[in-house]
């Protein structure tokens, strides 16, 4: 089978719907250090359409978080532009909600209050009943109705990450950004959460950008997989279209011979070519 039929070098190979939600153009990030400038990213280009699920994979320290932080607005590119619906991104905002790896829940608020804080901050004008409805709807979506009165330190890591996802989705962001959200979880919880995230994405038609270290996770979840080259001066090496039909079923995908071709190709890319270049 010819790998080239489902991947290509460069960017934007999938047939693009007319309006890109997010455009990353010629983005470069240079950190000044005592040993001179540290070029982390050098000329990154990517276009994301509304409703896509994008995963970003690459070696540790290549600049994945740096890239997503420029999309969320916590960081600014040294040169180049990041635009959401044509608007230059200048600072963080609830239209680009982030699910952080360490959950970032407020431990003195209950699960309910953590989500409520977000809804209340973004929609202060909604009446109380509507806000409550939104909070409960999203907590139900991640199966947390039982735990709403608990404080984050009292619940498991998986449940905390569910709260963080519910909080992010409850404000209906244009783009959901996840930085290695499941890295700290055990294998079973991880698979459960992957399935839930995929289901929510499919039902809500939201747009997701997610960093992962896990090739299987990326293959299960995303429409397009962004492979980064090694740092320093990393860029996007390839963007691979993942051809599996939605809604996806894990067992079904695992039986697909394409799965192993893709997996080997990515493994070879990361640990073959990319590790030799160092």
């Amino acid at each position, binding site marked *: 089978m010819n790998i080239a039929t489902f991947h290509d070098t460069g960017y934007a190979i999938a047939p693009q719907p007319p309006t890109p939600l997010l455009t990353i153009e010629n983005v470069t990030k240079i950190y000044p250090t005592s040993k001179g400038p540290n070029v982390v990213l050098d000329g990154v280009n990517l276009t994301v359409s509304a409703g896509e699920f994008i995963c970003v994979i690459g070696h540790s320290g290549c600049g994945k978080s740096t890239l997503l932080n420029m999309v969320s607005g916590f960081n600014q590119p040294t040169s180049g532009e990041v635009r959401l619906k044509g608007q230059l991104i200048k600072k963080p905002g609830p239209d680009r909600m*982030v699910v*952080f790896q360490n959950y970032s829940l407020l431990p003195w608020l209950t699960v309910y209050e953590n989500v409520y*804080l977000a809804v209340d901050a973004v929609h202060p004008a909604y009446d109380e009943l509507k806000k409550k409805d939104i909070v409960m709807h999203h907590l139900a979506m991640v199966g947390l109705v039982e735990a709403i009165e608990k404080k984050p330190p009292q619940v498991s890591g998986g449940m905390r990450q569910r709260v963080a996802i519910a909080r992010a989705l409850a404000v209906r962001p244009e783009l959901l950004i996840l930085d290695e959200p499941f890295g700290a979880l055990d294998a079973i919880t991880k698979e459960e959460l992957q399935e839930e995230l995929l289901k929510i994405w499919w039902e809500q038609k939201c747009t997701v950008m997610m960093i992962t270290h896990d090739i299987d996770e990326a293959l299960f979840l995303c429409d397009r997989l962004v492979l980064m080259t090694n740092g320093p001066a990393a860029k996007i090496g390839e963007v691979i279209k993942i051809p599996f039909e939605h809604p996806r079923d894990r067992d079904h995908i695992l039986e697909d011979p394409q799965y192993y071709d893709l997996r080997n190709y990515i493994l070879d890319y990361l640990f073959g070519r990319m590790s030799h270049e160092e």
Partner: protein
Amino acid sequence: MAVSYRNGKNNSNPLLKFWQERRGDILPPLVGVLLFLAVWQLIVAIGLIRLPGPYQIWEDQRARNLILYPFYDRGGLDKGLALQTFASLTRVAMGYGLAAVVGIALGILVGLQPLANKMLDPIFQFLRMVAPLAWVPIALVALQQNQPAAIFVIFITSVWPILINTAEGVRQIPQDYINVRRVLRLSTRRFFTKILFPSALPYIFTGLRIAIGLAWLAIIAAEIVMSGIVGIGFFIWDAYQQNYVSEIIVAVFYIGSVGLLLDRGMALLQRWIVPEK
């Protein structure tokens, strides 16, 4: 059989049960205090120091009256020790309350604004080193009256630990929580109530607890210098002038106990408001 019988009996008497459970916590300090009194009496008896011993204090008519009637009031400065202590505590409450408000407010400002911190930190560190007693003449000249001057001395002594700890608490707010604020674009009010205060609270309480001890130390020093006011500090000075040594020792006992109670009270409040993880 005997054991179970005993247990049954213990459970029926709560006082006995309490004693059996807490015996280990109650007995050693009690023995310690008794030993201390005995050693003190001994040192006095062999003539090592010229202070009265516990027995002499009890025998002293004036000192015994002070012990037995803490609430007597014959007008003017002639009041029981509980009333004297209460007058001092009122001053501490006012000065300390002011210090808490100003210290927390300035601490938040300095914690949030690195520039304000750079500007003010040298001044704070400098003023912090000035001893309470050194403030007394300045306060008396500046404020002209005993009462406001005493309150000012309390304030200026106890404000620093509150300020410095609050500022540190604000600086230590985890970046994660700051990120939540930024991505949700929380209003300043929500940021203060939902993130800043809960996060800095343990630090603020540490400052408050250090400050209450300092405030109590300072009031005694301040009152000794300020003549003619009702208060345990001036009471000691007055007794010294008239050479009533036993009275001084009874008053010192009050000072120590109040200091201990204030500290324990703050510790309790701290445990109640700032739950440990």
